């Protein structure tokens, strides 16, 4: 089986969790006998290509005849519709006809692809334009390459997936790592993005979601038929990671929040719980690592609650610093309001840090040995922190079993499920 996969990033050049997930997934797919043709903008050449062949979208010539994406998709649609003009002929003849038709279409299509478009490959201001360009490139690649199924990761690549589907007639699988509803509150979403997402999901033969939580959003907020939405939980790949030993400067227990400081991550609940715990356990320290649009507000809140002497902000952490932060922590907390999956609790557990996660995170569906609380239930969160600080059996069990549990979340297992989804998409056509 051969899959044409559209991503936006791939290690080592990553801005978020998507690249890491794609990397793990392609490796897993390679192990279960699926060839992956990975398309991404601005491949710089130093990506790990052991499991995949990476096509640099910037190297593909596209035409610039269509100023907007709808016109382009309309054109692609038109090409495909052309093959359906002879409905009453017998199947064999029809197949031949379609094949010759497709060949000619592909020729026709290539004709337009003259100019190369330079992708920046980073999430930036001209994102919408790049999404459109990427879609055109997707169509071009689909016309040239041989594959059985198309797999597109997150909204940035949905148009590319749709274009590839229209050109090739192969089934499209859309992978939802996050939705607009995870990025903004329900009444404040980017409608342009929502529209792209909805269109991608509608045109897809199968939709993969990273958690049941996300699956519910896809079904209820995007109105997608539940029958074609399948949950495949993410996994983690910690191979090649070495354990860091860090000298601890303080002997107090450290409770850590690590992530973007935005509304979705629930930083305020962490602060409120911290204030409650500090009343009873004054020898505790709290760290909020990361940056984001709510950071200043959080600093003010901490000052207002009068706990600033025990509460620290580190700013954005890079590379090894993340690992070091985990090594310094006694408890990791992810009080997310909405988290489609959430990989960082797994990293914490891998580093032997007991974790508290919100029930509103996808990762809560796969973890048993993490303590789960409702993000809004500050009392429960504080109580869980207190328990981990004061009753030694609790962190002991949570770290020991937690490490085993995380070690068992393998991409190979997830990849088998993804492959099954491919197969059902192919069979369903």
């Amino acid at each position, binding site marked *: 089986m051969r899959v044409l996969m559209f991503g936006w990033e791939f290690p080592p050049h990553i801005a978020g969790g998507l690249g890491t997930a794609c990397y793990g997934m392609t490796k897993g797919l390679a192990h279960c006998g699926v060839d992956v043709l990975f398309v991404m903008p601005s491949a710089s050449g130093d990506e790990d290509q052991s499991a995949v062949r990476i096509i640099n979208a910037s190297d593909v010539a596209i035409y610039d005849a269509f100023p907007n994406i709808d016109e382009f998709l309309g054109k692609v649609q038109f090409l495909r519709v052309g093959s359906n003009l002879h409905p009453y002929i017998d199947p064999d003849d029809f197949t031949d006809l379609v094949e010759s038709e497709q060949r000619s279409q592909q020729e026709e299509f290539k004709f337009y692809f003259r100019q190369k478009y330079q992708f920046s490959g980073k999430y930036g201001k001209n994102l919408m334009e790049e999404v459109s360009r990427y879609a055109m490139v997707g169509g071009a690649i689909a016309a040239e390459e041989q594959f059985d199924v198309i797999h597109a990761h997150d909204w940035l690549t949905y148009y590319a997936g749709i274009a590839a589907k229209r050109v090739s007639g192969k089934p499209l699988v859309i992978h939802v790592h996050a939705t607009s509803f995870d990025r903004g509150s329900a009444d404040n979403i980017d409608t342009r993005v929502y529209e792209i997402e909805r269109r991608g999901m509608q045109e897809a033969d199968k939709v993969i979601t990273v958690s049941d939580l996300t699956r519910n959003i896809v079904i209820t907020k995007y109105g997608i038929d539940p029958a074609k939405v399948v949950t495949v939980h993410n996994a983690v790949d910690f191979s090649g990671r070495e354990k860091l030993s860090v000298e601890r400067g303080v002997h107090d227990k450290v409770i850590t929040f690590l992530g973007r400081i935005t509304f979705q991550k629930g930083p305020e609940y962490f602060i409120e719980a911290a204030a409650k715990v500090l009343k*009873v356990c004054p020898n505790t320290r709290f760290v909020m690592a990361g940056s984001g649009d709510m950071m200043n507000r959080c600093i003010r809140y901490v000052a207002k609650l009068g706990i600033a002497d025990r509460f620290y902000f580190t700013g954005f952490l890079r590379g090894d610093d993340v690992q070091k932060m985990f090594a310094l922590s006694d408890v990791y907390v992810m009080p997310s309001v909405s988290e489609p999956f959430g990989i960082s609790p797994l990293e914490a557990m891998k580093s032997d840090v007991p974790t508290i996660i919100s029930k509103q995170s996808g990762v809560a569906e796969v973890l048993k040995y993490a303590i789960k609380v409702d993000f809004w239930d500050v009392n429960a969160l*504080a*109580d*869980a922190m*207190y328990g981990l600080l004061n*009753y030694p*059996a609790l962190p002991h069990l949570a770290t020991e079993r937690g490490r085993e549990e995380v070690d068992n979340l393998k991409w190979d297992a997830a990849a088998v499920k993804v492959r099954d989804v491919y197969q059902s998409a192919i069979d369903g056509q």
Partner: protein
Amino acid sequence: MNKSVCFYFQVHQPDRLRQFRFFDIGNDFHYLDDFSNRTIVRRVAERCYLPANKMLHDLILRHNGAFKVAFSISGAAIEQFERYVPEVIDSFKALAATGCVEFLSETYSHSLASLASTAEFKKQVKQHADLMKRLFGVKPTVFRNTELLYSDMIGAAVADLGYDVMLTEGAKHILGWKSPNFVYANAINPRLKLLLRNFTLSDDIAFRFSDKGWNSWPLTADKFADWAVSALQKDDVLNLFMDYETFGEHQRSASGIFDFMNALPAAVLSRDLAFCTPSEAARMYQPVAPLHVPYPISWADEERDTSAWLGNDLQEEAFNKLYSLEADVYKTKDDNLVSIFRKLQESDHFYYMCTKFFSDGSVHSYFNPYDTPYEAFINYMNVLADFELRIKEKLKAKKTK
């Protein structure tokens, strides 16, 4: 007619703890979730205890004393009945008056004290025996330990208390090729006779009765009586031990469990088998062999050991912490604190912290008021921390006096 069927039903309701946050520690002395305890005990009384007692009463009258059963009712359950549904006590008293019902002895608080402290264990057994005497007018002579926990040592301690019969599980890993349908004896003190639960036939009623995927579903009284006959072909006594809540609560009334039980005595008696109580069984049949049980067994889960209550770090920690308070609790000489200490010993609190249900056991989640073992542990430890404070305060107050 020398073969018998011996029924024993366990009646227990735990004292569920209320949500006790760490900010409550030192501020609030009320640990119990009165609302859910009341709601649950009333519901179970309505679905199970009252109708089942009435059915048994009718059966005993109908069969002119040929049908007999035994009960073990924990002190925790009795206290809740007295507080919330006293009519249940009356209906048990009516059963006692028929003379065909035996009441067994157990630990007052349905505790695991036999695994922690012999002194505490003996105190609770005595407390429970006194309660049985007060309510039903007879001092129990047969002992059944919490969750049928048993080991050679526990058996010896029970014999020391003057009991000569004890019930336990017919655990496969102990019996091997041997049949549970005989009377056995304790390996240390052979005077103590053992009745072993036939778990296959007991669970056919208690767990599988309404399981439509079971190849013997539906289970009828005649079918079951035939199984009893074939089980007793060469053996003496078939011990059917189960939770009383099987009738109407675990197996809903709509499953036909009451009709089944209503027809069972006639079916059994017509096949030339008798019913007996545990003390009668021990009197009628001779022990066939001593039973060696070096490590504790119980009737819980597939493992039939103590792992449902003491199988992980959380449970061990909570358990050890609890019993480390024992000496101080009695130093306070405060009846209220002692009573709370006993309530905190109920095995159910530890059951809620079991991590085994991650892999199996819908049974565990059914009995569990907490979503996760972590919550159960944190809540229990918070209560225990408060309780420890109360004991210290009390002891300090005594010193200054």
